[in-house]
């Protein structure tokens, strides 16, 4: 049992997306123009963290001035605080490999994107998301606040480096609550399998309901489409609905709370039959047509809706929960 779980998580952490980064032509100050940089980006990572890898390719070509780095995809500026994998799943209906992105070192669109000061901004965003998740799961952020500075640093470093071993080792220090139900394949010694009447022994002390932090990105397409290739490209972020709200996980005896249930609780007007989800706890990319959920992607996988939500959560979630 446990081996299966570990495998899934390992798979998730090792997920990566090949990127082909082009320097924006307005910033090419050398002749000939530099070729694009090829980078393998971890799914659970963030674009600004790749800059140290990318910059050496282009630094000789840049016009003079200070750097303010940002990325775009076909003119569509990318929000740097969204994990790379989620961006890819959301923006590329039909996965593009390698994913062609443009990097800019000048002209930061600060009317659209919040500022990014490199790794510090990304780390701050990570810790904040962690606090928010902790608040949702445990009812307070104490577990994050009480973590020592060096432990927090180590946790962040393990994520930044994609080091699952260190992360797993540090997790108990975080003391985040757990999500269990009898349909989850995870064997846990401390809390008994939930049966009626028993109180759950998770940290929050909730009896039958748990709150799971979920971030759902929904892309609605007006036209019907057969193939993913026919999906029109995104122009602005306004086309994407962002839901940052917890899913109330109802543990009912004998009934399994599936991914479909979770999605329907977030988007009650879309109760279609077809949905595929792949899961990450904190971030999904989802595409929909009219009243129907066409596709749900988590960690790049199209996951079937019938899968127990707790499995999805425990195995496919992002490091910041």
């Amino acid at each position, binding site marked *: 049992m446990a081996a299966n779980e570990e495998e899934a998580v390992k798979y998730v952490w090792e997920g990566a997306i090949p990127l082909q980064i082009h320097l924006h032509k307005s910033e090419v100050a050398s002749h000939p123009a530099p070729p694009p940089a090829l980078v393998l980006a971890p799914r659970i990572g963030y674009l600004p963290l790749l800059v140290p890898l990318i910059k050496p390719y282009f630094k000789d070509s840049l016009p003079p001035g200070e750097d303010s780095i940002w990325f775009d995809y076909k003119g569509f500026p990318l929000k740097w605080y969204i994990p790379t994998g989620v961006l890819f799943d959301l923006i590329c209906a039909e996965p593009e490999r390698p994913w062609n992105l443009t990097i800019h070192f000048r002209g930061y669109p*600060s009317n659209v994107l919040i500022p990014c000061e490199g790794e510090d901004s990304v780390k701050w965003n990570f810790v904040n998301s962690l606090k928010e998740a902790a608040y949702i799961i445990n009812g307070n952020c104490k577990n994050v606040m009480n973590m020592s500075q060096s432990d927090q640093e180590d946790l962040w470093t393990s994520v930044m480096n994609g080091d699952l071993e260190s992360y797993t080792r540090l997790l108990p220090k975080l003391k985040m609550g757990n999500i269990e139900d009898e349909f989850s394949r995870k064997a846990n010694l401390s809390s008994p399998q939930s049966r009626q009447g028993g109180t759950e022994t998770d940290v929050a002390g909730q009896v039958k309901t748990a709150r799971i932090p979920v971030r759902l990105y929904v892309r609605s397409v007006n036209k019907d489409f057969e193939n993913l290739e026919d999906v029109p490209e995104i122009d602005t972020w306004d086309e994407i609905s962002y839901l940052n709200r*917890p899913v109330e996980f109802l543990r009912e005896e004998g009934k399994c709370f599936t991914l479909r249930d979770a999605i329907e609780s977030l988007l009650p007007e879309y109760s279609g039959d077809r949905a595929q989800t792949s899961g990450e706890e904190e971030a999904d990319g989802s595409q929909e047509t009219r009243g129907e959920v066409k596709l749900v992607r988590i960690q790049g996988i199209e996951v079937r809706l019938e899968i127990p939500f707790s499995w999805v959560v425990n195995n496919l979630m992002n490091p910041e929960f």
Partner: protein
Amino acid sequence: MDSAGEVVVNDGKITHEGFTVAARAFSDKWKRHNLSLPPWSWVPLINRTLLKKEEGYLSLEKIIILTSLEESAEEESLDVTAGWSEKEEADDDHTVLVVQNVEDEAHYYDYHIVYSASYMVPMLYFRGYSSDGKPLSLDVIKRDLPSSSVSLLLESKWTFITQEEHPYLNRPWFKLHPCGTEEWIKLLSESSSLNDCRMPIELYLVSWFSVVGQVVGLKIPHEMLI
């Protein structure tokens, strides 16, 4: 217990439905008692019908603050020909918004009260911009705030202002950090009610804003708290 008339839960938090009710009550009271400022409007999230209930946020926009006179403790009323006239008299302290029709010195502010499903409390988002639409930096905004609140910001542990993306508008705004909100709401409710420590939901946002608004220089007249 989940009807619209529910009282606020003891721990200072509020549900989404509760927020909608409280918001309506808040904007009604504001309209009635705060005639010097424009009313709040409720912006529904219509193109995203979430959770079948009407969801949205409160918006108060285009409040003009004149920069140079902000520090003064005088109470003046000035006539404004175009646009709004905002004049607020405070009895005790001297938080005054004074408006003059001098466009190049005027700073415009938008305020949105948005519900956070994660923290189950409201949050204040705001931004400032000059008359040409250029956004103001936090340093400039701080100079527009009443001097008392600047020290409040710096000393207190719970009023952090961070620059984040507006949850619905895809633009950078400033947000007042929610951490600790439920604690002082709890304190407020304990002292205000007669019978038990609960607060009627209609007063939730009023109480909340009586504290939060001060940080950004928007005061609530006492009548609203009744």
